[in-house]
């Protein structure tokens, strides 16, 4: 009897070629695909938004976002995805749908989106210039500060965009894109970034 391997393959595994891309010299943009995460859509049941928020607070120690924001905890990010709903992004199974089911029992409906998205982190001097080609959102620091989030579109594709904590003094933008669109959007991203020089990588860590 054959034994089967159920290796995972990220939606960008074929398209992503780690290393430099585009213009030579100092790269203006770093693109990193974050692989293998848990992502759970939490939607309040009718009239239960308060209970859902309380349940989130008990679980994560922070209030769930009620406006377009992303709230980070030590081991999860809660990202607004619409009225009375948010996404829980984490790694390692601690906040998987199975783990969260009892937390939100009765207050919210959960839907596993762990495999439905690809996660791309964008940073570098030219990150905003490059994102301006894809997104109609104003990403100026005064407008889109750390923790700002948007449910928006890029290249006619739905995207959840949020600004994470700065890294080495530079802004970090995160894009959650639909998995089946990811490769197509990736090529558009590379087209838009090539002039700045890109460092491409992937990571198992946020």
């Amino acid at each position, binding site marked *: 009897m054959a034994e089967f391997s*159920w290796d*995972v393959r990220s939606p960008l595994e074929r398209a992503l070629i780690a290393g430099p891309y585009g213009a030579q010299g100092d790269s203006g943009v770093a693109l990193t695909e974050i692989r293998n995460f848990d992502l759970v859509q939490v939607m309040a049941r009718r009239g239960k938004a308060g209970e859902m928020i309380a349940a989130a607070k008990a679980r994560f120690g922070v209030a769930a976002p009620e406006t377009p924001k992303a709230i980070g905890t030590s081991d999860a990010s809660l990202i607004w995805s619409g009225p009375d709903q948010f996404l829980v992004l984490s790694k390692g199974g601690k906040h998987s749908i199975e783990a969260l089911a009892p937390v939100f029992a009765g207050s*919210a409906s959960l*839907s596993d989106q762990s495999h439905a998205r690809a996660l791309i982190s964008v940073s570098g001097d030219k990150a905003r210039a490059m994102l301006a080609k894809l997104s*109609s959102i*104003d990403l100026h620091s005064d407008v889109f500060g750390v923790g700002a989030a948007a449910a928006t579109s890029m290249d006619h594709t739905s995207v959840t965009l949020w600004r994470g904590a700065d890294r080495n003094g530079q802004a970090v933008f995160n894009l959650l894109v639909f998995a089946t669109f990811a490769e197509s959007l990736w090529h558009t991203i590379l087209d838009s970034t090539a*002039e700045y020089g890109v460092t491409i990588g992937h990571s198992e860590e946020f």
Partner: protein
Amino acid sequence: MAGDQANRLTSGGLIDRSTALSFRFDGENFLGFKGDTLASALVANGVKLVGRSFKYHRPRGILTAGSEEPNALVELRSGARREPNTKATTAELYEGLEAASQNRWPSLNFDVMSVNQLFAPIFVAGFYYKTFMWPAKFWEAIYEPAIRRAAGLGRAAGVSDPDHYDKAWAHCDVVIVGSGPAGLAAALAAGRSGARVILCEEDFVLGGRLLANGGTIDGLPAAEWVARTVAELEALPDVRIMTRTTLFGVYDGGTYGAIEHVNDHLPVPPEHQVRQRLWRIVARRCVVAAGAIERPIVFAGNDTPGVMMASAMRSYINRYAAAPARRIALFTNNEDGWRTAETAIAAGLQVAAVIDARPDVSPAHRSLASKGGFPVLHGSVSAVDGGKTGVRKISVSLTGGARAEVEADGLAVSGGWNPAVGPTSYHRGRPKWRDDIAAFVPDGVPPGMAAAGAANGAFGLGACLREGFEAGAAAARDAGRSGNIGSMPAADDEIFSITPLWHVAGKGKAFVDQQHDVTASDVELAQREGFQSVEHLKRYTTLGMATDQGKTSNVAGLAIMAAVSGKSIPETGTTIYRPPYVPVAIGAFAGHHRDENFHATRLTPSHHWAAELGAVFVDTGLWKRAQWYPRAGEKDWLESVTREVKAVRSGVGFCDVSTLGKIDVHGPDAGAFLDRVYINAFSSLAVGKGRYGLMLREDGIVYDDGTTSRLAEDHYFLTTTTAKAGLVMQHLEFCRQVLFPELDVQLTSVSDQWAQFSIAGPKTRDLLQEIVDPAEDLSNEGFPFMGAREVKLRGGLKARLFRISFSGEMAFEISVPARHGEAMARNLMIAGEPFGVTPYGTEALGVMRIEKGHVAGPELNGTTTAGDLGLGKMMSTKKDFIGRVMARREALVAPNRQVVVGIKPTDKARRLRSGAHIIPKGETPGPENDQGYVTSVCFSPVLDQWIGLGLVERGRERIGEIVRAHDPLRSEDYDVELCNSVFYDPDGGRQRG
């Protein structure tokens, strides 16, 4: 002499004399300098003739020094990069530039089509409409193509553009259009206040008219003030200066379109860079400081090469150190024109005469004339003697009736200035007339916009700075910025005194619109023929409809119309202003969305595995789906597809069906919700079971179908067709949020979460037992038809298994989280190897669904009812659902509706084609006898013949009837038999087995 920059002045100019650039015009080699435009380099080389006119092929030279140029249009670059109708006046010179004149054959100097000039008396406005009316059918085939060849602009490259373009968004508090004194002052005020500022300048150098006019600001020479101001602006973190960027449109909500010529000044964009970038700028406020455009005076011979706008002459002399002529005559009706005489004298050029149409000339100018030794003639230019080699002699009608002649090789003309009212009028605002400057100024500007400086009719330098600074400060304040704006830059105001003069009567053609060859007499003719409204004038004569949008001609045209129709200019009015302000390449609007990136594509989880196997992919919506998997030696698609179908029907195969829309329906009221959106009941469905469901539109027509399974009391897993996945999600969200907000139900798309495969064929269970944990019971009892539940796979992964069949065979669909999708495909190949497992594509899937009589897209075509599809009995009578009431309308339940039926040719060897019409035997094909058509066809390996489904009037009552399939598109007509739509295993034993 051409080629030696003989007309380059020995000093001055904003050119870099240390960087010589070689270029070619019409095959001849020339030199210019960095900082030149193509036009200024041609001027420096003494080239006067640069093009032939649109209709009459008259020789034309350079009229202006800016983006309003009507004449000096060239084909820039060659091969795939050839750009027709490029303005030499804005094309930045680069090393190796190649340009060619347009609309001439065989050469610019000797143009055969210039014989058109001899026929000029008949080429009047409306000539084509009047002349080429009969026979009507000749218009499209003969007349229009011939006219287009004769009257033309440049030639498109005709091949794919090798360069890339992109699009970007920008956001700011204040966008400022133009970097002349008003624009720079506005940027200073807004920038100092802390506002986020974008300054757009279409030129490659900042300064606007200061570059040509000079002047003194804050005690500094203009150039130094510009440098100091730009340095201050560049030091502000939130001020972005965009040169080579034209703001071309004003859209709703403070959105502006701009085109940035990122690399048009280079022969080829550097690697990885785009040629142009289209900007969408979102701004709270906009200051239009786009300046004004000097307007010509219409007189006979005003299109002779060497006749140039007075301001353009100043630009060529002061900015480019290039002399358009050695002995210059000036024709003006205003004070500003005199500055060209001053400039010419300062540059050491000769002034032949100044012809001033005004009654008086200032004492200062009189003394200038006497010092310069040239006459001041009161009157108007009535004719120009010259031709393709330029101006030779100018005839002047003096006030009082006498005539004079002036010998000159260049004629500068100033008829006054028209504020650039385009951007301020793009929201249908009509500019208003101001008598004191004899010009239209902005009125009814779009929300959030203000005009300043010359664009607002303020022609003095001091006034430009004041208005600009105040507008910039006000815009920043409105945007909530309150920083210290410092002191306002100051300068003196020049006097602008004008006596309007539009048209000098005389013999010979006097051009209003030089790009479209519209003359003053065309305008008069239009008035005589009743085309008196400016909008009619425009369309009848094509005045202002060329690529320059009449920037130099519209006002003169309507002024002449006003004169001949006895109305005032404001009564006559302007035509509607529409974007774009300058032509914008379609490529810039496309951006990166071209070729394979024309639209986004979606890939299934097993895409790369299928590609490795050599699958042929088909575009279905945005998806790339494996259509079939050809094997070596197979001669065509039909052979591959037939093999795949036979393999499934006799063994086992699998197909990636992840493209189906998948929706999690959660909540205590999920069942009640589904009862309302489907025609059949779902609240009664047991947990662990699936059911086929059909949705109607509100009007009773079928919307979509699919299988929905109940995974828990409060959790259904709904599937849609591939085509309608997004639309059904929208529809259900609308139902949830708007129609039934009282229901406690939550929807989430999980289309991308699950990789789903259909496994079909009599050996399906054998294959599955290899891959599923041995503890799972897959027997008919343990997993009956339409069962649905989670199972454990060997190796520990959990999957969902659904016992549903589209093929008519024993079949399951299995889903795993999408990142395991490729592993699933590989493991199905391993597990199925002993059973000859065969991956199959969408063609085989389609064949099997037709053999089984399942309806799909061609039958769910937006016109069919559940009854038409043979599914009328599914409509529940025990509950309400969307479409229930409207589905009972008389026409939707009429007995003679076209309904789904099976169709097969009586000649088994004949190929059936979809689209063929069904006509009763013995009747004549035509609408009155048309009883339906063939919707879906396939070659059925089981029946060994072509079969199909069709929508046929009363089809189900006519099983066994022979009718005609009439196919006029393919010139076919043959007999077919109407039959049961389920060709294969009609009692369903195989899928239940």
